[in-house]
């Protein structure tokens, strides 16, 4: 007789990330770089976008799974262990938090506080060190001269979740961006990382 657990429980070693943003903010390449960072540490990682005919500004979602064995699952990430929100204007338009458990991690790209974003009560259910706001767009503007928050958010991700090291994020970033651009992006990631670690 086939016994089937009807509720999905992801036990074990897998760590699932879902990144929300808008087209043009580097959501997809952020997920890809995260997977490269995990790979460089010897993990198996999978990254893919939720595909669509997007254009600049349209909501975009990308996913990354990290595990110490082969990732075979192909469905979108329904139960993220970590949620990264690259654009807070999505907050009341898209159901961003679907599937995020109260022991998960939450990172939002904003200079405002969670309370100012109307999420004060929502974040109370999380361990305080699991949630963070990151002024990623501002760091990006300062270090790379463009408001592309994805790399800074990855630095913050490393700091908050400790699932990948900052140096892996930096290596992944340098793999994608050569020369000075790589240096600048790496600095943005490091800045975001430090801003969290020192809080």
């Amino acid at each position, binding site marked *: 007789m086939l016994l089937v657990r009807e509720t999905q429980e992801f036990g074990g070693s897998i760590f699932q990330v879902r990144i929300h943003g808008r087209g043009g903010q580097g959501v997809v390449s952020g997920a890809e770089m995260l997977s490269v960072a995990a790979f460089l540490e010897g993990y198996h990682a999978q990254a893919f976008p939720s595909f669509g*005919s997007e*254009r*600049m*500004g*349209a909501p975009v979602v990308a996913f990354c799974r990290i595990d110490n064995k082969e990732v075979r699952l192909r469905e979108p990430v329904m139960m993220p262990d970590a949620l990264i929100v690259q654009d807070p204007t999505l907050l009341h338009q898209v159901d961003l938090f679907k599937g995020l458990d109260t022991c998960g991690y939450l990172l939002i790209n904003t200079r405002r506080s969670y309370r100012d974003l109307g999420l004060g009560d929502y974040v109370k259910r999380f361990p305080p060190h699991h949630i963070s706001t990151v002024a990623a767009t501002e760091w990006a503007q300062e270090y790379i001269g463009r408001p592309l928050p994805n790399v800074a958010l990855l630095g913050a991700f490393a700091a908050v979740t400790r699932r990948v090291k900052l140096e892996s994020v930096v290596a992944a970033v340098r793999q994608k961006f050569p020369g000075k651009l790589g240096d600048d992006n790496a600095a943005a990631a490091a800045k975001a990382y430090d801003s969290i670690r020192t809080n």
Partner: protein
Amino acid sequence: MSDMTAEQKVKFYQKGTFTAGNRLVDQARRSVQASMERSNAITSGHRACQGCGEALGARYALDAAMRATEGRLIAVNATGCLEVFTTPYPETSWQVPWIHSLFGNAAAVAS
């Protein structure tokens, strides 16, 4: 069938100025884009980026075609940007009958 086909007029957002549709020139020389009665075959709400050249170009072509056919026009659209951004299900920007077929047969379908 569909009850949502009340024809939408074109909206000029820059009221009180003369900048839209070369209204600085005298009446006789203005193009059809200056007119409030301009046919609005592709209405607003499509998913193109603001200022998209294709959307603008398509509008101009349609204005001319609508004048030439006195509004009795059917549009046949090939697979491409225009088709995708004007018809994001379940909505459409088209106020004229429109059909999308394939990549390379728009002219044949129109025939």
